């Protein structure tokens, strides 16, 4: 967190999605790292140590849930935002230890989730 804004890693197997989130966050002063699968995501995480990770749950290879566990084992305090379009009943939620965004989410929901993650990471 060099200049007050946290660094963010986005892992999603849909490159366009990664691009949109990046294009939205970079002008707002965030440092953004990208990965389009779990394996690359893990490598980027080890290398860059981002403050917040946005993870798609369903991905080929190492999926979001497994990547979350692997990352948590390395750095317990990292804030993780999970996203998925596969769940049918669960809505987006923000709790003290978990943030989940149901796809399709509004861009403002993403901002809200990031604010919550930032707030927690500063504690």
């Amino acid at each position: 967190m060099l200049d007050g804004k946290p660094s963010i890693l986005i892992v999603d197997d849909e490159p366009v999605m990664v691009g949109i989130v990046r294009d939205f966050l970079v002008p707002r002063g965030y440092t953004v790292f990208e990965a389009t699968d779990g394996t690359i995501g893990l490598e980027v995480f080890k290398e860059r140590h981002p403050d917040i990770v946005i993870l798609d749950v369903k991905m080929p290879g190492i999926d979001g849930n497994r990547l979350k566990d692997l990352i948590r084992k390395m750095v317990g305090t990292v804030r993780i935002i999970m996203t998925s379009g596969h769940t049918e009943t669960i809505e987006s939620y923000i709790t003290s230890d978990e943030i989940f965004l149901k796809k399709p989410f509004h861009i403002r929901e993403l901002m809200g989730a990031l604010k919550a993650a930032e707030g927690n990471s500063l504690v």
Partner: protein
Amino acid sequence: MIKLTKRMNALISLLIRLRYWQILVIGVVSAIIISEFIVVAIDILWDGRISGELIFAGFLTPLLDAFIILIIFVAIIAKLKESYEELKSAQAQLIHAGRLSSLGEMSAGIAHEINQPLHIIRLKSQSLLVNADEGLIPTLSKEVTDVLRTIDSQVERISKIITHLRIFARTDSLNDTKPIDINQPLKNVFLLIGESLRLKDITVRKEFYDAPLMITADASRLEQVFLNIIQNAKDAMEKLPAQKVLTVKSLPGEDDTIEVRISDNGGGIPVEIREKVFEPFFTTKEVGKGTGLGLSIAYNIVRDMGGNIEFHVDEGVGTTFILTFPNMIQSNARDNNHVGRKTFHIDR
């Protein structure tokens, strides 16, 4: 052996299609032939000549035997016919269940695949709007803002339809019975086929009761019922040159029931097919267009819910399907053995 089995099957399917009077005629004729044959055979075997006494004994006994055989024969055919009908109905249900489960699987896959690009479209337009709002990009003209908002809301609409289609198809095989307002599944049906009715120039009059009408039912199965009846109404009005009107009403019925009335102005179901409309596989549509299962499925679902489905033909004007359901309070107390009736009234 296989040849013999094949022949037996052919014979049985032939017998099933026979009408009772045809069976009777065949029976009587064969009884006479058999008895005559026996008389002649006995005569020849006995002493090579024909006596009156022998004719009497030889004629009456085999005739009585033949008569008994005939009755057994008719009973067997009746039983066969009954089993055949049951089998036909079970087959219809199976085919439908199979189709639904593959439809469910397909919809879930398609919904996910389509939702992803839709989400991207939405996020793009939202990003532009939010960025302009926050001064990160030059202010957008009103026109551009309007376009972006329209894209956002229309894409949201598509998402909703797709999500609903998935829920509708997937949960159909499950039995998710709970208290619901009957207006909800009615509204959801129009989410699925409202556009196709509009494209066929059908005016839809929704006269939903303005308070919740609570019944205990599986919402997606009810939707299926309404959907099937409305599809039929739509097809009935297909060749209508004048204004096509579909009226859908929900209202409290008599004796603590809840009623849904679906009317079209397609001229009414022709007299000669009225008895058959709820039969599985009965269709007037051309091959490939209808399965003949829509109304039979609707009937079975309504019957399962302890409800009743009937139709009322206004000669030359149209058909009204009247669905009656026990309301929530009544359905809790209702006899489990209650079965639906299918009846129809005709106005002349």
